[in-house]
C-alpha cells in the first residue's frame, strides 16, 4: 500500500534507497546531504535495509568504494554535495568511463571560498562533463521517484552509466513535505535484479579501467558518448513505465503555461516551484509568460528544448551558478549554443541569481521577467545580468 507521509526529504530519499533494496551504501557525510546518510545508517543497523554500509574517510574513498561495489555487480548508492563532489571529481570520470551503474544523490550546494553551506548549482556545473546521467528535481516527491527510476535507468543493459539525482540543498533536502512512499513489493517489481554483464568474479577474470594508448582512447570516448546520448531512449521508457505503475509522469523538459506564450522563463530545480506561483501572478496581471523547466541535464535534451521554444520570442534563463570570467550562466551558454542554428531563434537573456542559498521571491521572478523582456527589446551590452547584487 502506498503511504502518504509527512517526512523530511532527505529521510524520504533514504527510504527510497531502502525500497530499491540497495546492496552497498558507501558514504561520507557532508552538509546538506547528512540526513540521508544518517537515516540510511539507521535503516541498516535496524536491519530494515540489508546492505553493506561502508563508512569511508572521504568522498574520494566513497566513490572509489562504489566503483568496486558496482564492478562486482552490487546495487550501489552514495550521496554527496559541494566540496564532497569536488573531492570525488576524478573518480566520477572513472565511474562513467568504466560504465558502472552507481546512483548518487547530490544535495546541490555552493562551492568555497567563501565558505557557504547553502544551495546553488555551482557544484553541479563543475561535474558537467563527467559523463554521468544527471536529473534535476523540483520537490521531494520528484527526488524520491527519480531515485527509484535512477536505479532502473543506470542498471539497464543498454545504459550502464552512473546517475546523479540532483536536489537543491536545504530548499529541498531539509524541508518536510507530504511524500507518497510506495509499497516495497511494487518498487521491487519495478526494479529488476541488477545484472551487470561483466562483473568482477574469480571464475571469469576481467580487467577494468585499463590502459588505453592513443590508438584506442578516441574510440573509447566515442563509445561513452554514444552510450550517454542513447541513454535518453531508456530514460524516457523508464519514466513512462514509472507513470504507468505509480501515476506520476516525468519528462526531460517540462513546461507550465508555456502553450502559445511569447516569452518563457527557464529554471532548474526547486526554484521552479516559486517561479510557477510568480507566473500565475504575472499572467493574472496580463503578461504573456510561461515557464520551461529542465529536468534532464545530461544527456542534454536538444530536440525537446528546441520544440518548446518554437514560436517563442524571448527566453529568459535563470542560472544558479556563475561561470566566472566566462559567459555568466553556464546553462544559458549551452542553451545559446543549442539554439544558434534555429531560424527564427528566440532572443535569449541570461540571468544569474540565487547564489549560495539566496532566495528569489515571487516578486523577484517578476522583476527578472520584466527586466528580461526590456533587455530583449532594447538590447544589452552585457553577456548576462546578475540578479539582486548590491552595487
Amino acid at each position, binding site marked *: 500500500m502506498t503511504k502518504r507521509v509527512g517526512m523530511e526529504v532527505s529521510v524520504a530519499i533514504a527510504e527510497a534507497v531502502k525500497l530499491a533494496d540497495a546492496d552497498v551504501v558507501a558514504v561520507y557525510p557532508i552538509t546538506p546531504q547528512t540526513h540521508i546518510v544518517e537515516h540510511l545508517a539507521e535503516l541498516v543497523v535496524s536491519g530494515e535495509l540489508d546492505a553493506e554500509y561502508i563508512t569511508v574517510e572521504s568522498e574520494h574513498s566513497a566513490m572509489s568504494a562504489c566503483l568496486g561495489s558496482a564492478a562486482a555487480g552490487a546495487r550501489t548508492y552514495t550521496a554527496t554535495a559541494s566540496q564532497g563532489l569536488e573531492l570525488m571529481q576524478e573518480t566520477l570520470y572513472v565511474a562513467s568511463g568504466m560504465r558502472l551503474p552507481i546512483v548518487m544523490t547530490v544535495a546541490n550546494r555552493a562551492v568555497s571560498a567563501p565558505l557557504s553551506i547553502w544551495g546553488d548549482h555551482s557544484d553541479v556545473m563543475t561535474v558537467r562533463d563527467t559523463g554521468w546521467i544527471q536529473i534535476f528535481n523540483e520537490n521531494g516527491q520528484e527526488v524520491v521517484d527519480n531515485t527509484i527510476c535512477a536505479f532502473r535507468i543506470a542498471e539497464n543493459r543498454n545504459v*550502464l552509466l552512473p546517475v546523479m539525482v540532483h536536489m537543491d540543498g536545504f530548499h529541498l533536502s531539509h524541508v518536510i513535505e507530504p511524500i507518497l512512499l510506495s509499497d516495497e513489493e511494487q518498487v521491487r517489481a519495478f526494479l529488476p535484479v541488477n545484472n551487470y554483464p561483466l562483473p568482477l568474479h574469480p571464475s571469469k577474470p576481467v580487467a577494468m579501467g585499463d590502459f588505453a594508448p592513443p590508438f584506442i582512447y578516441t574510440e573509447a570516448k566515442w*563509445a561513452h558518448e554514444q552510450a550517454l546520448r542513447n541513454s535518453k531512449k531508456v530514460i524516457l521508457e523508464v519514466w513512462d513505465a514509472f507513470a504507468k505503475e505509480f501515476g506520476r509522469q516525468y519528462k526531460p523538459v517540462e513546461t507550465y503555461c508555456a502553450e502559445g506564450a511569447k516569452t518563457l522563463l527557464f529554471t532548474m530545480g526547486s526554484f521552479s516551484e516559486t517561479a510557477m506561483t510568480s507566473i500565475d501572478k504575472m499572467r493574472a496581471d496580463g503578461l504573456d509568460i510561461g515557464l520551461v523547466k529542465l529536468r534532464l541535464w545530461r544527456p542534454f535534451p536538444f530536440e525537446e528544448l528546441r520544440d518548446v521554444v518554437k514560436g517563442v520570442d524571448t527566453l529568459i534563463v535563470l542560472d544558479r551558478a556563475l561561470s566566472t570570467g566566462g559567459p555568466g550562466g553556464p546553462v544559458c551558454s549551452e542553451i545559446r549554443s543549442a539554439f544558434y542554428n534555429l531560424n527564427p531563434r528566440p532572443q535569449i537573456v541570461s540571468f544569474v541569481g540565487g547564489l549560495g542559498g539566496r532566495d528569489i521571491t515571487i516578486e523577484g521572478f517578476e522583476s527578472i521577467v520584466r527586466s528580461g523582456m526590456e533587455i530583449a527589446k532594447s538590447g544589452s551590452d552585457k553577456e548576462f545580468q546578475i540578479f539582486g547584487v548590491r552595487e
Partner: protein
Amino acid sequence: MPKPDNELTWKDLEIGCIVTNPGSAAVYRTGDWRSQRPEYDFSRCIKCGVCQMNCPEDSVKKNELGYYEADLYHCKGCGICSRECPVWVISMKEES
C-alpha cells in the same frame, strides 16, 4: 583472427573498455617507448640474475647460453638493469 588493436572501432570495444582476456598485456609492445637499449658485454657476466630481478617489465630472459638478456619487444629502456648489474655488463645505447 581478431582485428589488430589499432583497427578496432568503437563498436568493437567491450562495455567500459573492459578487458576480458586475462594476460593480454603480454602482447602490448612496451618496447615502443624505448629511447635507449641495453647492450651486453657477456664476457664479464657472472649470471647472477640481478638484472632480471630488477627489471620492472619482466623483460629479461635467459638465452640459450644461460646469459640474461632483454627481450626488446617489452624492454622499455629504463636502464635499471644497467644500474643494478654488479659487474657492469650492461651499457645503455641510444636508439637510432
